[in-house]
């Protein structure tokens, strides 16, 4: 369905078919202006997408510069003077039970979240794409074996499988990354396989085959690139979910450990003070919610922009 639409049927661009370098410049111009129109529609006509984009940009900036521009040292304790202070001018988000500034900790925490998401999804996309393209391209018994293997991972509720794996491997952030990679890749394998199955039936692929292009070349130059848009949509949505899953694992004591300013870890401690210090749980949770929200909005918006059918809704 949407997979079919999301990958526009491009000609064999930049490929020496019948002697010419490019098939058609008019074609590529049209594509570019189409892209501009889509971008306009995406950001200007839909304000929500713009909001999502702004939050995501802020999130990325904080991940890079957060610790540097934070007003206080996120690890500096002051248990005599500033324990569990409510929000004020000098501590806009208040302080925690060790007198650390929450705003600085929330800002510093963005980097941890982004790092985990980046590592997990890099692995998931790479491995998932590999398995998915092998299954989709070769079909038959290869497809059957690889896909049943993939289905096995999907038979568990994802978060619970991640919890089981992480709890076995150990309570460190790196094991959480391994656990989350294990639960995220099967979705990409399925996605890429479905894409490849639909793309390889297209005329230009048949044309490529008939002029004698070799298998790997066909796969890597002509089939896989067309599966990219769908993967990007999924990736955008999954960044939010990977961050959410990391925090959930940290919240139950796996993943990041205190004194790490990871949002879930902070809330895990904050829970013990929920009666006297509302701000302690509120702000890390709000930061997490906003981040996931922004990536969701952006993913949805991308889907609408790349999938003309869903845009009509």
């Amino acid at each position, binding site marked *: 369905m949407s997979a079919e639409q999301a990958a526009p049927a491009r000609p064999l661009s930049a490929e020496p078919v019948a002697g010419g370098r490019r098939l058609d410049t008019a074609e590529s111009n049209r594509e570019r202006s189409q892209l501009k129109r889509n971008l306009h529609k995406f950001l200007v006509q839909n304000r929500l997408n713009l909001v999502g984009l702004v939050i995501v940009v802020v999130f990325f900036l904080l991940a890079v510069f957060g610790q540097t521009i934070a007003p206080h040292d996120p690890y500096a304790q002051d248990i005599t003077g500033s324990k569990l202070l409510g929000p004020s001018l000098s501590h806009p988000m208040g302080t925690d039970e060790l007198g650390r500034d929450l705003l600085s900790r929330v800002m510093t925490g963005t980097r941890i979240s982004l790092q985990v998401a980046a590592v997990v999804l890099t692995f998931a996309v790479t491995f998932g794409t590999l398995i998915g393209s092998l299954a989709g391209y070769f079909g038959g018994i290869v497809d059957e074996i690889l896909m*049943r293997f993939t*289905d*096995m991972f999907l*038979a*568990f*509720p*994802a*978060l*619970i*499988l991640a*919890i*089981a*794996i992480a*709890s*076995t*491997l*150990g309570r460190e952030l790196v094991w959480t990354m391994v656990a989350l990679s294990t639960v995220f890749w099967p979705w990409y394998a399925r996605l890429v396989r479905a894409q490849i199955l639909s793309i390889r039936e297209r005329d230009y692929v048949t044309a490529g085959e008939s002029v004698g292009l070799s298998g790997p070349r066909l796969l890597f130059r002509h089939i896989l690139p067309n599966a990219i848009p769908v993967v990007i949509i999924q990736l955008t949505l999954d960044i*939010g979910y990977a961050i*959410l899953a990391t*925090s*959930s694992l940290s*919240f*139950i*004591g*796996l993943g990041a450990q205190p004194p790490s300013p990871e949002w*879930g870890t902070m*809330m895990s401690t*904050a*829970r013990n003070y*929920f*009666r006297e210090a*509302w701000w302690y*749980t*509120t702000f890390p*949770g709000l930061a*997490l*919610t*906003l981040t*996931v*929200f922004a990536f*969701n*909005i952006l993913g949805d918006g991308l889907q609408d922009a790349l999938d003309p059918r869903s845009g009509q*809704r």
Partner: protein
Amino acid sequence: MLARLIVRRLFFLVFVLFGLSVVTFSLSHIVPGDPARLMAGPRASASTVDKIRERYGLNDPLPAQYVNYVQGVLRLDLGDSFTTRRPVRDDLARYLPATLELGFFAFILSTVVGVPLGVLSAVKRDKWPDHIARFVSISGLAMPVFWLAIMAQFLFFGQLGWLPDGGRLPIGSDPPPNVTTLYTVDALLAGEWGTFATAVRHLLLPTIVLAYGSLAVITRMVRGGMLEVLNQDYIRTARAKGVAQKTVVVGHALKNALLPTVTSLGLQIGLLLSGAFLVEIVFSWPGIGRYAVEAIQRLDYNATMATTLIIAFVFVMMNLVVDVLYLFLDPRITYS
């Protein structure tokens, strides 16, 4: 046809369960450190550790250990919990009902609210019911369930004092006579109105918090499905014939719009089961989620693996039911 489908699914189920057992087995055997040492405790002598190793067959080659493990699972012998010192099977039997009660009511709530909200949102597109529905579905997908739980607890227990902070019943009070293991239903059956009211008050916050996430998904799916169906020719025809709006929406459109939602039921169950892990900790709900998390924190591998296995089993079985249900609902599907 139906029989063939079920046979196929059961075959796949065997395969999945085999996979499950391999995964949980490997997980419990790549444990860093020595499981026998863990079981014996840090102060045990070397000979005690050896005895434990002998008793649990930890000296056998891995394939033999695997066969041993599977035989155990088939006999429903899931080993002993290191922390509670009871068979894990007994622990699960004790804690599973609480999770089922919570999950059951959360599922009912999310469906009963989600489906009408989705329909309303599609019919009143871009009006205020639609805005509410979209807020619910966007926030429900983005909010961490454990955060929502803490916030609800802070507001309704800490600030307003309307509802209890957790547990199934107040500490020290007796549960109703056991019939269905669900406290609310059992209390009704026994005619204990007071207990019923207390159980409901305890159930309220965890249920709403747990339901919110899947409510969001259901609302979103029903809305999407309805919008697509309402644009179809046969709806226009029905309207042109003068069929009442209510009949068009409920009788003609909803039936077809619900199909994708039914497919996502499996996903809902997964969401509810994983959500239960987090909600149960916050509300001290004595279910298997809290049991598992406590087991994880105490490195109690038998309990952790058994819980994972049970939850995955429940998940797979429910998905089988959903597949069969789907076939009944949509005769066009053939699962070839």
